[in-house]
């Protein structure tokens, strides 16, 4: 990981609070459809500063709400960053933003995700499109709407690793090429450390939003009713967020497990495809060997009869070896499985902590035994 970071022109990503809010708004509005948009900013000494963002135009969803249609709409939205119409939209928007002193460099794109299901061909193709076209200092920000709704914000920055870029450029993902480039599923995406940055004005504004309760003594309320209706009573602060104390985390765990199982299913299908290919290959190769042996025997008899030998490499014309299926799907799927597994890990970590808390709360004194 450290090595890859050294090679990459970017070391970390710094996101303005404005961008965070804009992404959250856009992604949660279109949820559960995938939302995508463009990021602008600049890069300063290897730190990519994302200072503004705008969404890509919404895809017109046909009024027929059959399952198939909603699927195609999702795909169109997910493919938006590399669609031709949006390139025009993006350059128009950036042109206008430049007039009001916004950093007018495209530095990547963002997408929404649902329970970490973002490792797919679309994301990879989009990021490849950006990393290839632009000055290659671009990132993909992934905002996980469902995870953010149950606790802390999930916003991550990814780039494609140089080795994957090279492999994707060739478009070849055979066993042989993977072996040569030493590419594993862990090397597809490189995660960059991400920080949030506030402007001075924003900091000043944030101090006016609900914060920690005052530490000094307060006046006593006259009655219970006045305590409840007191407008000056402190509201729950934004930081730390007490929502993360919520106990109903099981649905999220369940959903992730479901997704994990789906991914394993896909993995299994991929394996089957590969085995089918191998059987096919073995059959063809057996045929070739048989043919070669036959030809050799024939040549031996011809040599004995003082006749010129027949050519031995004719088999290349007679037999055709099957094409090896691409390994890309399998690789991405493996990465996705890893992502889910880690997510499950994270959930179980906090859930077990909360469970012990609940237990010792309901059975006080049990902890001392």
């Amino acid at each position: 990981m450290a090595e890859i970071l050294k090679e990459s022109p970017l070391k970390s990503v710094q996101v303005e609070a404005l961008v965070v809010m804009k992404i959250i708004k856009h992604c949660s509005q279109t949820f559960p459809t995938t939302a995508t948009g463009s990021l602008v900013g600049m890069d300063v000494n290897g730190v990519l500063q994302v200072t503004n963002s705008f969404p890509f135009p919404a895809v017109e969803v046909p009024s027929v709400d059959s399952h198939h249609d909603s699927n195609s709409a999702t795909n169109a939205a997910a493919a938006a960053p590399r669609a031709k119409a949006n390139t025009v939209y993006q350059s128009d928007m950036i042109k206008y933003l430049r007039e009001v002193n916004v950093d007018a460099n495209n530095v990547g794109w963002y997408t929404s995700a649902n329970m970490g299901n973002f490792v797919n061909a679309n994301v990879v193709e989009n990021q490849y499109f950006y990393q290839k076209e632009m000055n290659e200092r671009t990132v993909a920000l992934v905002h996980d709407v469902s995870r953010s709704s149950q606790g802390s914000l999930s916003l991550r920055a990814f780039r494609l690793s140089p080795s994957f870029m090279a492999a994707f450029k060739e478009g070849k993902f055979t066993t042989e090429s993977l072996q040569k480039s030493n590419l594993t599923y862990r090397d597809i995406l490189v995660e960059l450390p991400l920080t949030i940055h506030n402007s001075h004005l924003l900091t000043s504004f944030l101090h006016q939003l609900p914060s920690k309760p005052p530490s000094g003594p307060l006046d006593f309320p006259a009655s219970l009713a006045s305590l409840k209706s007191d407008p000056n009573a402190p509201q729950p602060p934004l930081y730390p967020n007490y929502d993360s104390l919520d106990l109903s985390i099981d649905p999220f765990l369940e959903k992730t497990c479901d997704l994990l199982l789906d991914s394993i299913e896909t993995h299994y299908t991929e394996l089957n495809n590969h085995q089918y290919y191998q059987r096919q290959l073995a059959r063809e190769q057996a045929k070739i060997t048989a043919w070669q042996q036959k030809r050799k025997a024939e040549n031996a008899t011809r040599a004995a009869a003082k006749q010129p030998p027949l050519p031995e490499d004719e088999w290349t014309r007679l037999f055709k070896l099957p094409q090896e299926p691409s390994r890309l799907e399998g690789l991405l799927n493996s990465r996705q499985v890893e992502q889910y597994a880690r997510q499950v890990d994270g959930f179980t970590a906090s859930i077990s902590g909360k469970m012990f808390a609940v237990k010792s709360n309901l059975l006080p004194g049990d902890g001392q035994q």
Partner: protein
Amino acid sequence: MAGQNSFLHVARPLGPAAIGSQPTTAPLNVVIQPQALFSILDHSLRRNADQERVIGTLLGVRSEDGSEVEIRNCYAVGHSETVEQVEVDMDYHKNMLALHLKANPREILIGWYATSNELNTFSALIQNFYSSQGDGTFPHPAVHLTLSTTPGRDIEARTYISAPVGVTPERASDSCLFIPVPYEIKYGDAEKSGLELISGAKDREDRTAGVVTDIEALERAIEEVLGLLDRVSNYVNSVLDEEAPPSNALGQFLLNALALAPKVDAADIERDFNNHIQDVLVVSYLSNTIRTQIDLSNRLATAALTTGAGDGLGSSGGGGGEGGQKGGREQRGGKGRGQQREREPREPREPREPREPREPREPRESREN
């Protein structure tokens, strides 16, 4: 923001209305979403050095009867102001509006903002443009939002709508009566996690914050709650020791809060807790196993081939080499299948686990490992 609750409009202030149409008199309420404010603050920072204030267009949604306006989005519009005249880039405004509506078809023009509290003739002029027929918000009143960004002062937001005032016809275009209307800043659940992260950086010198994991957020929230509990118990103790003045209202409030704890049987808790924690641990264990298996499967996919290719080099004929390779792959495929078979029986159980009574087999399994 202290004065934001101090409005009293018995009837809604009248905006400009078409002759003959019945103007509604329901109170008008303005809701502002934080990302719009963030965007305005960002624009204010990016103004040209000689500009006192900057303006922009507000976008959002309006309820059916027009009594509630929600400001969701905004964009900057270039303008220049001198003592005698004001110029607003109308083409820019129209083009940007078209671009924004493409991405957010549900949002409509609401009004405009300025980054200074001052209301002057130019404000009236611009306000009249935004509420005009045709391009403006007519027949609804345009909302004007001012956000003071004077350094060293609180950031103060105010919202207005306007009414025409009786002056001579030639001065009608640059005069109007600004009527303050109440507003509130609202954020949804989706934004809460983002705001938490952003406000986490407000007390730091460098104004940056990293993205935290769920478990870290949980830890912070728990620590905070422990601190609050300590404070309350300190107070209660000092009341008991007759050091602090008691308060009936607070006592009642605390008693009510404590009464919320459910009465449950200790044995039930113990049983449910054990069941659930076992489920969670097994899920965690399985997800880790899956991760390892996937890793193994991917390694075998390329590693087995290495030995295969080595054999292939050793043998002479091209066909022989292929054969060696084939052997290597076959072996890999077999492993892959074996791994699947071994995992298969456990999989279907996973998603159901949290609800299922525990079978004695699984806990043993997790202890083994």
